[in-house]
């Protein structure tokens, strides 16, 4: 099982970057989930080709890029997505630098969401868990659309602050 464990340890920090870049490229959340898995399997099967002296995330982003191109050829974009070549090149470049950053933030977020209470928790639930449109949330909570947007903004900022504090407390 050791090669798999080795691969998984390489893959986990890279995965958030792959997800984000694919989300920017194809915009379809369900398709992104499928493609991420395809990228992981392709990377595992080609692991012998990976040069350990180079960034794993950069290497796996190359695979993700090809998968995204194939998917877009077959399905076309479902919404406005990033297609500018220079923008994509920059995203791939900075993505490789962000692997540990995104992975650490994701884990820190676990402790932050647990402390959300009251309306903040309710709006997160409606928006992120139930994936309801903002207008529908506004009706459900007897608030205006603008109020919901402000609440979501504040929740995100609070979570961001919480994540930063947890990361700095852990010395990352």
């Amino acid at each position: 099982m050791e090669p798999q464990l080795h691969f998984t340890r390489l893959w986990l920090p890279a995965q958030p970057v792959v997800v984000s870049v694919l989300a920017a490229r194809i915009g379809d959340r369900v398709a992104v989930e499928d493609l991420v898995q395809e990228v992981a399997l392709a990377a595992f099967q080609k692991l012998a080709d990976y040069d350990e002296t180079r960034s794993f995330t950069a290497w796996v982003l190359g695979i993700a890029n090809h998968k995204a191109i194939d998917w877009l050829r077959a399905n076309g974009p479902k919404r406005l997505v990033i297609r500018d070549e220079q923008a994509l090149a920059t995203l791939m470049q900075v993505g490789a630098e962000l692997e540990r950053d995104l992975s650490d933030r994701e884990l820190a977020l676990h402790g932050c969401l647990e402390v959300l209470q009251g309306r903040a928790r309710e709006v997160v639930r409606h928006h992120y868990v139930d994936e309801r449109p903002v207008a529908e949330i506004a009706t459900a909570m007897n608030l205006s659309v603008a109020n919901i947007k402000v609440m979501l903004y504040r929740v995100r900022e609070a979570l961001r602050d919480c994540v930063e504090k947890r990361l700095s407390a852990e010395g990352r």
Partner: protein
Amino acid sequence: MTHAATVEHRRALVRGFIDGTLNAEEHAALEVQLRQADVARHFLRELHFDQAIRVTAKSQIRRAEIEAAPNTAHPVTARLRIRRPNRWRPDLHHWSWARAATVLVIFGLTAWLLLALPVKPQPVAELMVHLGTVEVDGNPRNGASGIINAQELLVSPRGWASVRLPDGTLIELANNTRVTVHRGTDGVRLTLTQGEVKADVRKQPSGKPLVIESPRSRATVLGTRLAFATATDNDRVEVTHGLVRCARRSDGNSIDVPAGQALAINSTGTLAVQPIRPAVEAIPEPPRSGLTMWFDPAHGVLRDERGRVQRWSDRTTHAWTVANDVPAQRPALDLAGRPLIRFAPRGEMLAGQIPWPSDGAFTVAIALRPTQLGRWSQGLGWGWGCFAFHAQEDGGVYAGVGAPGGGIRFHPGNGPEDIPPGTAVVGHWQRFIITYGHGVGAFYVDGNLIARKAMPPPQPRSDMYLGRADAPSGEPSSFAGDLGELLLYDRMLDPQEIILLDRRLRGAVTP
């Protein structure tokens, strides 16, 4: 536009992209901005942050609601159902009884529907990545997906899988592993009924340890790295980092296993830790070029309900398989140290269809430990005219291209082309490597060249046997020993490769 306004504008564009509210012009502006590294960095962070909130919230909030209402069959529905119930208060005095009854029926039906509608359960873990088939409650999964509380995962014989818990704990599932993930108010519990898991456990909340258990034993983990394997006759826990408390469930006896130590737990006997055996990764890999068959007891073994080896698949991409349909003739898998296949002195065997290489040249490598020597003991191969191997009472060994009447092969004797008596020794692990090419065979024992002689090329066969249960008269009929590893190449390995291969075999059978 001031710098602050520019930054704010960029942020608004990024947010708009995530929310899907940008028009074409704004989208084009965003793409231009994304050519700058700092904007691209912010963009990826925001995309990821939004996704992370979604995934984490789905896991945590729903779970918290379920845990908060453990006696409610459908707590989420119930919670939604009570929203604004008091706003509507009909004055029944002004209504006819018929209307009131209708309203009550509608209310009743609505409430019943809301309670009866199935609620989509929320995941307690995530299947991150897998190879081969992973069945979840009997249904094959394809791709990353959530694992619901109390679902059972089964990894296919040639597969593996990686599961992550919400706190980042990583669980690796080996092939043939069957495990159920439970999450309750007292923490996470992995119930292992077959196979092996390796876990890299994040620090667990106080009073909510991660528990890995089999029907026989239970390991309580607070934050560490460990491997837990269960087999029919024993469980094994290896702790790489941290401390794990292991308990035998039948009598409650427990012992703490610190880092670097391992514990084997059977039904009875004293619980005692011992240093972890040499890691599998420390064993050198064999040369891969020309490797056509590689049987390794640490991989691909499927056991029956008695714990006997029903099927054994090799590690090459061919997935050659040897098996035995007769339960009484199946050998055992010993897991006390590094896994090995144990054949009783008579009557146990595995066989399968494995084509002999057609190029003529070959290398066969065997790691075995005889438990009893006799006529035709330690027999394996493809039969007369092809490759065959066995020992005899005095420890002499026959190997090479056999043929009726003796053929031209290595045989016991005292000449330079012979294998001397006493070569096979009861109770000792031994490595035998036989190469053949350009009409000449060579016989190595424990890395040393013992004999060379001319031989005819082997005839292609495809019936491979490890031991024999009911062999034709005069042919190998038993194995009587432990088999550590068996490899076949379709070429003659060179001396450097022989050294590497011998090191591999030595590592594979080191206790």
